[in-house]
């Protein structure tokens, strides 16, 4: 770990899954996990988490607040496969079965700083009306085999989804050594000062 020429860059993400808006549902909890490429490795913190169950606030906003903290650090050698956070929200249906209320994913912001993201959530749809009824009745709604598929493009064409609700996330992003490795993700104002960036895009 020499400071002169680092061999990895670090991405520190902390923040929280702040709140959600699911006008129709109550008593929800959420799970998050990170999906990242092969060149990425978590070095500290939790990659996955499951939150408490929260009920709607009594006021008009009817927000579901979790304030569930995220704190994870990745190291990587390649921006390809930049981490994405995958969220899945669950809650009981009328019969008390835990069913999925929404899936969603978003990339961790590239630039350092504080970012707020509101992710629209969606759930897979049943293949037929009868299926819909039975799945409602049995409390076994269609689910993704792995929530991580929402972070990938492969195979999505066979599914149909319906969107419902939003989840708001807050990220505080800190990066280290990105610039040294030739990746410039900083905000525009700091970029302008540094002048033309070194032609390091292609590491020697």
């Amino acid at each position, binding site marked *: 770990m020499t400071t002169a020429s680092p061999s990895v860059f670090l991405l520190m993400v902390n923040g929280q899954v702040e709140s959600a808006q699911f006008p129709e549902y109550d008593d929800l909890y959420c799970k998050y996990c990170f999906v990242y490429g*092969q060149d990425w490795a978590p070095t500290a913190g939790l990659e996955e988490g499951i939150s408490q169950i929260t009920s709607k606030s009594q006021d008009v906003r009817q927000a579901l607040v979790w304030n569930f903290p995220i704190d994870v650090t990745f190291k990587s050698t390649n921006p390809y496969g930049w981490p994405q956070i995958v969220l899945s929200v669950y809650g009981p249906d009328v019969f008390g079965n835990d069913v999925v209320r929404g899936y969603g994913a978003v990339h961790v912001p590239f630039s350092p700083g504080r970012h707020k993201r509101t992710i629209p959530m969606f759930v897979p749809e049943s293949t037929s009306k009868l299926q819909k009824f039975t799945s409602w009745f049995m409390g076994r709604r269609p689910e993704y*085999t792995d929530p991580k598929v929402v972070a990938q493009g492969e195979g999505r064409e066979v599914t149909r989804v319906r969107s419902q609700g939003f989840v708001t996330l807050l990220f505080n992003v800190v990066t280290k050594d990105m610039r040294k490795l030739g990746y410039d993700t900083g905000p525009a104002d700091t970029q302008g000062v540094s002048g033309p960036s070194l032609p390091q895009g292609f590491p*020697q």
Partner: protein
Amino acid sequence: MVSEKSHLGNQQEPVQEEPKTYLLSMTARRGPRSLPPIPSTSRTGFAEFSMRGRMREKLQAARSKAESALLQEMPTPRPRRLRSPSKKELETEFGTEPGKKVESTQQEIDSQSHSRVKFRDSARKIKPKPQVPPGFPSAEEAYNFFTFNFDPEPEDSEKKTKASHREGTNQEEEEGEEEEPPAQGGGKETDEEELLNGDDAEDFLLGLDHMVDDFIAVRPADYESIHDRLQMEREMLFIPSRQAVPTYKKLPENVQPRFLEDEGLYTGVRPEVSRTNQNIMENRLLVQDPERRWFGDDGRILALPNPIKPFPSRPPVETQELSIKGELETMYKKAVKYVHSSQHMIRSGDPPGNFQLDIDISGLLFTHHPCFSREHVLAAKLAQLYDQYLARHQRNKAKFLTDKLQALRNAVQTGLDSEKPHQSPDTIQKTINDYKSEIRQTRKLRDAEQEKDRTLLKTIIKVWKEMKSLREFQRFTNTPLKLVLRKEKVDQKADEEAYEAEIQVEISELLEEHTEEYAQKMEEYRTSLQQWKAWRKAQKAKKKKRKQAAEEHPYDETEEPYPEEDLVKPIPPEPTDRAVIEQEVRERATQSRRRPGEPMLVPELSLAGSITPNNQCPRAEVLRREDVKKRSLYLKVLFNNKEVSRTVTRPLGADFRVHFGQIFNLQIVNWPESLALQVYETIGHSGPTLLAEVFLPIPETTVFTGRAPIEEMEFSSNQHVTLDHEGVGSGVPFSFEADGSNQLILMTSGKVSHSVAWAIGENGIPLIPPLSQQNIGFRSALKRADAISSIGTSGLTDMKKLAKWAAESKLDPNDPNNAPLMQLISVATSGESYVPDFFRLEQLQQEFNFVSDQELNRSKRFRLLLLRSQEVPEFRNYKQIPVYDREIMEKVFQDYEKRLRDRNVIETKEHIDTHRAIVAKYLQQVRESVINRFLIAKQYFLLADMIVEEEVPNISILGLSLFKLAEQKRPLRPRRKGRKKVTAQNLSDGDIKLLVNIVRAYDIPVRKPAVSKFQQPSRSSRMFSEKHAASPSTHSPNHNADYPLGQVLVRPFVEVSFQRTVCHTTTAEGPNPSWNEELELPFRAPNGDYSTASLQSVKDVVFINIFDEVLHDVLEDDRERGSGIHTRIERHWLGCVKIPFSTIYFQARIDGTFKIDIPPVLLGYSKERNMILERGFDSVRNLSEGSYITLFITIEPQLVPGESVQEKFESQEDEKLLQASEKFQAECAFKFPNRQCLTTVIDINGKTVFITRYLKPLNPPEELLSVYPNNLQATAELVARYVSLIPFLPDTVSFAGICDLWSTSDQFLDLLAGDEEEHAVLLCNYFLSLGKKAWLVMGNAIPEGPTAYVLTWEQGHYLIWNPCSGHFYGQFDTFCPLKNVGCLIGPDNIWFNIQRYDSPLRINFDVTKPKLWKSFFSRSLPYPGLSSVQPEELIYQRSDKAAAAELQDRLEKILKEKIMDWRPRHLTRWNRYCTSTLRHFLPLLEKSQGDDVEDDHRAELLKQLGDYRFSGFPLHMPYSEVKPLIDAVYSTGVHNIDVPNVEFALAVYIHPYPKNVLSVWIYVASLIRNR
């Protein structure tokens, strides 16, 4: 009043401002603003005030009235308002007002001005008190306004005033102004109202009477005169003029308009806009944007070219006669066979492609190469010169010309001599003159040729001398070139004579010429002399005259010009001197001709010279030579600019020649448009670099293979190479001189020798595409616009055509759209610069490349990323690719590169014999191609892959679940619940375990006392007749009394090894031990990749070995026996069971009794039966030979096996048949879902084929048939054994996650690998050809799972054959591994088992009974007579005995080395004597197929190795690779003996069968000398 107009514009402002001031006044109402407005400051103020004044008047009038009324009627409410002091104050004020107000209203009637003045007065009186800003009613006023009843009178009066005002025409403007304020005032009033409402709501509630009329002011409608409005609009609005703007206005000062189009720049077509609109826009822009940014240099508005195409690019649809319905209708067309579908097959049995072009690339020769040393350069030059010489020599033009000259001379001679009578002397003279001129010409030519020849010869000699000196100088030779100058002796005299004669002839000819010339010149001279003389005369006469004249006029002389003074006297031409001519001729002759008597020099270049060996060369030269060795070359063949094939990579020879000698048969469909070769050079392990490209001419249609001559095409490259050794480099200057002068620059160049020709088909028809294909005759109406449609795609490669088209269609050369085309044409027509052979679409691509491709390829990081994304197995899961190249170790690529190299180089070490190496390579290719085929299929996800969804429950499930509710919670007989299946993704190392439950074993061989005399045991003769019939009599109860009662016969234990993890059970006792132990073995997936695809391709095998634990007393001293026990544990291998992991993975569990694979000879053991002990089992056991073990194997947790891709494959079967088979399968699956039913299978090309096509009688090898000519059963057994010797390779392993592929028998024999189906098909076909009734049995067996067996009908009974082991079982054999039967397949039908049971023991194999067997082809669907996919006949090559013997030796060596490796801590001694004994014995085993030899062998061994304790056994395997053999030897554990004085013996025997099927016997033994 006059001033009013001028102020009109301003007047609006105060009015508009009012709301603001009003708002302000709300807060500052009580402010100390006591100053009243000055009455006559300006007209505006006045007007304003007058309006307000009138309002106030009204208010006051109303107020006074209201007040009075209030005072009268409502005395009570007053006190209520005494809440705020301010209001009290107000109230008091009210009292003073009424009188004045009445006054003022009355005054107002008189005149406007008067009323105003007065009003102001009154206002002044009011104002000080409430201090309301001017123009606003105070709160009280407002209140009064709303609360009091107003009298109608003052309103009337006001109306009147207004009316009077209106009469005054000069006041109209003012009036217009004045109309508005009242409305505004009204607005304010409403505001006031609201304000008051808050305070005084109560008052209103108290029932004050107010009429609607009181609040409404009736006024005339607003009006503005048109003139006025126009005036205003004129001020407000800007209407740009439609007049054209002069250009100077649109341009900056003093700037001349500049027309880009005139300057030759492309401007494009401006969009169509009408002139007026443009003018309007320009005018507007001029006013609004004075900076003239919108105007271009030419003074016009800037405009982009029109983006709309002038014509539709979509072809018109013909919709005249066809209805839409008809067009939409889809037509079904049967897929046609693609000719190149099976390009990977070894045997090119496919019909050839449509057309074939044979390209023969024989080799490559460099005429210059960077690695050339100086000597090479010279050598190349020499070779070139010599080639030239040879070419010249062959043509021998000089000789030809000499002959011609001779002939001409003769002709002249004869022409002169024999004057022909019928020709006039004129014509003769003319012909002679013609001849002579020709002679002259020819002579000149001849001289030139001769001179050339001579100089060439001289240069050759010069270069050779240079080379010699260079060789001398550098003290080594690099090239074997040697020049020999052969002197041809000539007859000096004759030569001299000829030479002289020639010269004489020439001289005479020349003389003649000269005399002719002389005569001519003389003629000229004479005429000119005449002229001169005449002139002289004239001159003289003139002079005379002049003299006279001079006397007369002396001044005339000066005027006299001398015009003809310069006419000189012509010089008479010199007569030619013979001597001079002779001199000239002789000189020339010596220069260009061989001197008489001089020997004729014939240079001969040979390669006889020797090259100095490396060790005698200086270092730089050695380096150069090494560099040359590192280089290798290959050629790519590009057909229509696509790479179609490439030659093998061949190293560059020291002579800079590369020999390829490859012929490429290009099977083509299209007419070739271009044919090129690309020369690639690789240095070391770096990537190939393109040296040059050579374009080959497309052969004429008359050039066929075999007749095409080898041609040489020259190529050269412009690469610059500088080398740090002797090599001179390329494109860099170098010199031969020491001082560096006389520099040379040579470019890499060379010649490719090749020939291109059309192939000739089998029936002699040349495979040339028809000519119609060549001319692409599609020309459309868009010809002018579209180059491709007008001249065809092929025209694009033809520059001239393209240029012509461009000229015809008058393309705008400045249009950027046409830029690449124009550039291309200009380049092509100028013809000097580099003409690319392609029409590049993205011509800017290179500019966008941030590094060159080469650099990118050199980057290790990029390479790694690329390989990973291509999912190359070595890099598939490569994590964290380093950031910098320097951090990537070279060794990362080593494995991969090695593999890549191995793909081309056939590794003989692993495979030993070449055929198998080729097969292995081929299998690899098939695998790759199949995997690539299915890679796309794998990308298709099903819904079930993505989403977990409950099935729609049917009634039965609902019923069951209802039933479940009523079920007992804890039933007395609990039902087994299925284990939860785990999907493979989220697993890691250590999660998966293999559970092996070893229950018991039967009939383990028992030890024989070594010392006891050999006794003839009861051998079960494996006669066929006894096989099926239970014959207990064969095992006569002949247990002997050698064993003392109580001594254990055998102490077996089981060792399970998997992935080099070894577990073993405890030791049990006796030949029928029961362990009942569970062993747990960890499972590791390759690369930690637990994906389904990866798990499927695990090739590991679970070895279950049974050992006998033998205790040996090692005490050497009997006296110590009392104090301690010293024993040594030895273990003797008895047999093993091998179960591949893939089987376990797909079966989920394996449960059953398996036959132990016991070597045919197990020295020291015998299968003694103790009838006393095991009478109970006897009846069962007697049915079969061998030992058995009961096992239960499973994986914990249970893994979900990957499902094979359910894809519909293309098929050439009839559609009806496919439908029928689908229906049949569906019906069968509905009735018996667990029974295997197969109707169609997938062949090696990935096509669906009906299964019966695989069955057809095929001839077994003659060799096998001739062994037992009379014994059909023995032959059958032999054939089965032959089939079983073909190595087994499960499809599922090779084609992970992919369906089963069936290869035909000839493919199977070519590949020498296949799984059950291939074995079964081959065996079945052999049986059919032997005349047996045979069927393929599809069913389940242990341990294979779903498999294929062969059923045969022998007189009166059925036999079931296991094709992979060669064993056969009777139908009623309990130990038959086939456990259930799904269907039978014959050559012409399929029968599905619809009997109640499916165990072969319980079913009837009579397929004629439709109640028991459902047949595919029946009366309703008769057998259509499907042709077989099998070949007509199998052709067997005799095996190469010598190769087998060689392989045998190598194997023995390898295995011996391995055993020594496995014993790193001990010395391994080899007992040669024993080895040779064993070696003799193995062929016997092969002959008897492992039977019946044990006892003889044993006796012999005992005889020879009497004092050794011997344990060992022969292993028998089919040969596929070396590794399985090594594994098998390892698994026996022979090497584990660590007795100090142990010796080993190992012998290998390979018996070759036809078609390279090899049977391998390995005899391993350990020997311990008895003391």
